[in-house]
């Protein structure tokens, strides 16, 4: 019995002290670690793809009259990085920070407020200006080639588009 105890003692001492210096020295994370979500307002288009896939439903798209706000409240975030995966422009990413403790839950709120584009037909705001600009930039060359569907289509809200298309098919008026 004593022998086994000595063996155990040896086993324990052999490992030596393994305690990491953290938090006195900075902690390291592995490459690819999914830490805190970061929102880059300069890139965000306001498409809301992140909000649609978020399992804890903690990303909101809040539309007001002239603005659209993408709000991330990562207090209940599950750090799954689905938002990062679906974001078309990389405006929401998970960085490697994990030291998130705070006294105030508001510290965990991120938001980006973007201006809305108004429908050229009815004046209702229907998407963000950036979204519109992005679509135009992406597809403008193609339109120029095929010479159909003038870009003006994109400045009109889906509702108006439907109506206008309907009336066009009936041989009605042209687009404004």
């Amino acid at each position, binding site marked *: 019995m004593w022998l086994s105890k000595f063996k155990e003692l040896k086993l324990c001492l052999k*490992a030596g*002290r*393994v*305690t*990491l210096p*953290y*938090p006195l020295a900075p*902690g390291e994370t592995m490459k690819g670690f999914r830490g*805190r979500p*970061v*929102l880059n*307002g*300069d890139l*965000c288009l306001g498409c809301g793809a992140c909000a649609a896939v978020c*399992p*804890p*439903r*903690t990303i909101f798209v809040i539309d007001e009259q002239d*603005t659209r706000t993408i709000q991330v*409240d*990562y*207090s*209940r*975030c*599950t*750090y799954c990085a689905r938002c990062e995966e679906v974001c078309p422009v990389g405006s929401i990413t998970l960085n490697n*920070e*994990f*030291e*998130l*403790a*705070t*006294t*105030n*839950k*508001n*510290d*965990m*709120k*991120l*938001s*980006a*407020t*973007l*201006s809305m*584009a108004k429908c050229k037909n009815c004046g209702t705001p229907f998407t963000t*200006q*950036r979204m*519109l*600009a992005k679509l*135009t930039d992406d597809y403008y060359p193609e339109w120029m080639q095929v010479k159909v569907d003038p*870009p*003006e289509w*994109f*400045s009109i809200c889906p509702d108006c588009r439907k109506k206008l298309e309907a009336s066009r098919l009936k041989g009605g008026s042209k687009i404004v």
Partner: protein
Amino acid sequence: MFDQEKIAALLKKHFKRSLWVYHANAGSCNGCDIEEVNAFTPYYDAERFGLKLVGSPRHADVLLVSGPVTRQALPRLKELYDAVPNPKLVIACGSCAVGGGVWFDTYHTMGGLDKVLPVDFFIPGCPPRPEAILWGIAVAMGLVDKKVEPYNYQENTADKPMDNI
């Protein structure tokens, strides 16, 4: 017979050296609980900062709660809170306790600890790494300052007129 505020201030100082933790799981998935225990194991060794897990709430200074607080756990949790002697800290650990987690709005949870008890510190993470828990405790002890802050971006429309469309 004592000046309560003075004592509380004095204690704040002493909490830097000695903080006894009672850990309550209010319906969590176990992830946070295991990481909390992990914070006491050799690689992280929370005990070197004077932390100790205690078995009775009467001995505790900190109520470390994980889980979204389920309806069934709520009354027990309140009893527990009352059993911890003053001055005490309440720390919500993990996304469930901080914000309610995936189930923040379901019929059987309360959607986070701050809905039912006054919470002093939040440690988000799902689950928080042991280092994150140590960091949170260090913030609670006043050893380090919190790092996170809110971010609000406002698009400046004046720069980019949308006339090109």
